[in-house]
C-alpha cells in the first residue's frame, strides 16, 4: 500500500518533469538552452519514472533489469547531449549571448 503510494508519487513527478522538459524544449530561444531543458527529461525524468516502476516490480529479476537500464541511460543520455552540443559548437552555432567561438582553440 505504502509502496504503491510512493511509486505513484514518483511516477507522477517523473511525468511532470518530462512535461517540463518538453515545454522547455519548445519555448527556449536558443539551441543550447533547448538542449539544457531537454536534458531534464534525460536525467531527472528517467530516474523518477524508473524508480517508480522499480518499486512496482518489487524484488524480482525485472527490478534488477530496470536498475541496469537506469544505469545505462544515466551513462548514455548526458553523453549524447554532450556530443550534440560539441557538434553544434564545431558547426559554428554560437551560444546566444556569448562571444563567438574561435575555430582553433588557444592552446
Amino acid at each position, binding site marked *: 500500500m505504502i509502496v504503491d503510494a510512493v511509486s505513484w508519487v514518483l511516477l507522477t513527478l517523473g511525468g511532470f518533469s518530462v512535461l517540463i522538459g518538453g515545454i522547455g524544449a519548445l519555448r527556449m530561444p536558443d539551441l543550447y538552452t533547448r538542449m539544457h531543458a531537454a536534458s531534464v527529461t534525460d536525467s531527472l525524468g528517467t530516474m523518477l519514472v524508473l524508480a517508480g516502476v522499480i518499486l512496482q516490480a518489487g524484488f524480482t529479476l525485472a527490478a534488477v533489469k530496470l536498475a541496469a537500464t537506469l544505469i*545505462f541511460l544515466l*551513462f*548514455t543520455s548526458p*553523453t549524447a547531449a*554532450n*556530443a550534440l552540443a*560539441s557538434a553544434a*559548437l*564545431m558547426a559554428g552555432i554560437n551560444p546566444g549571448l556569448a562571444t563567438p567561438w574561435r575555430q582553433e*582553440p588557444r592552446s
Partner: protein
Amino acid sequence: MTVFIIIFLLTLLVITALAIVQTSNLFAAAMLAGIFSLISAMTFFLLDAADVALTEAAVGAGISTVLFLGALALTADHERAGTAGRLIALVVVTAIAAVLIYTTFDMPRLGDPNAPSQLHVAPWYLEKTPEYIDVPNVVTAVLASFRGYDTLGETFVVFTAGIGVLFLLGKAPVGQPKLSPAMTFAGKAGLRHYQIPRVVGRLLIPFILLFALYVQFHGDYGPGGGFQAGVIVAASIVLFALLEGEERALQALPAGLLKLLAAAGALLYGFTGVACMLLGGEFLNYSVLAHDPVHGQHYGILIIEAGVGFTVTGVLISIFHSFAARGAK
C-alpha cells in the same frame, strides 16, 4: 485501460508521419523516422507483440536511422520543393483513405476473442508447442522450427541485400582518395571535443556486445533471437566506427571477415537443413538431430539462430562500411 495509451500512441504516429512528409529538411525527416519507429515499437509492445517491438526498436530506431544519415551525408541535405501534380495526389489519397476506412467497419474490434484470426491455426500452435518443441517463447518456436523454411528465405534475403549493396558501393569511384587516419572524426575535429563520447563509448561497447549475446541465446525464453542480436552487434560496431574512425573499425573487424560471416551464417542454416535430411528426416526437421525429438528441436533452433545472427551481423556492418567509406574526403 491500455487501450487509451494505444490510442494516444497511434495519434502520435499519425502526427509524426505528417511531420515527416511535410518537412523539407531531410536530416529532420530521418530523425523523425527514427522517432516514428520508436513509437511504433511501443505500440507493438502494448499490442502483445514483444519480439516485434524489440526488432522494430533495434532495426527502425537504430540501424535504419544510421543508414539514412549515411546516405544523406553522400547526397542532398534539403528537399527542393516540387509542385507538379500534388493536388491530384492529395485527392486520390483522400479517396482511397475514405474507402479503406469504410471497409474497416467490417473488421473485428481490437482484442475480440471470436475474431477469425484467433480461432483456426493459432490455438493449434499454442497447444502443440510444449509437446513438440517445449520452448517458452512460441514466436521463436514458430519462427525457427514450425516455419523454419520462411526464416531460411529471410536469411537469404538479408544476404542478398548485403551482396547488392556491396556490388553498388563496394568499389570506390575513380578519383576518390583512400582512407587515412586524419579523415576520422577524431582526427579532423580535434580530440578534445570528442573526449567524453569516446570514453563513455569505450566503456559501454563491451556491455552492448554482452547484451547482444544475451538476446541471441535467450530467444527461446523471452523476446529475442538471431535477428535482434545481429542488429545489436551491428549497432555496437557502428558506435565503435563513429568514435574511433573507419580505419580502426576495419582493423578490428576486417571487411573480408564480415563477408565471411555473412556467407557462413546463411550456409550454416542451409547445412542444418541438409544435415537433417542426411540423418533421415526431412529438410529442416530438427527432430532427428538428437536422441530425443524435443532435444533435437532445441539443438536445431540454437544452430539456426546462430546462423541468422552471423548473417545479419555481417551484412549490416558491411552495409554500414560501404556507406561510410564512400565519399570520404
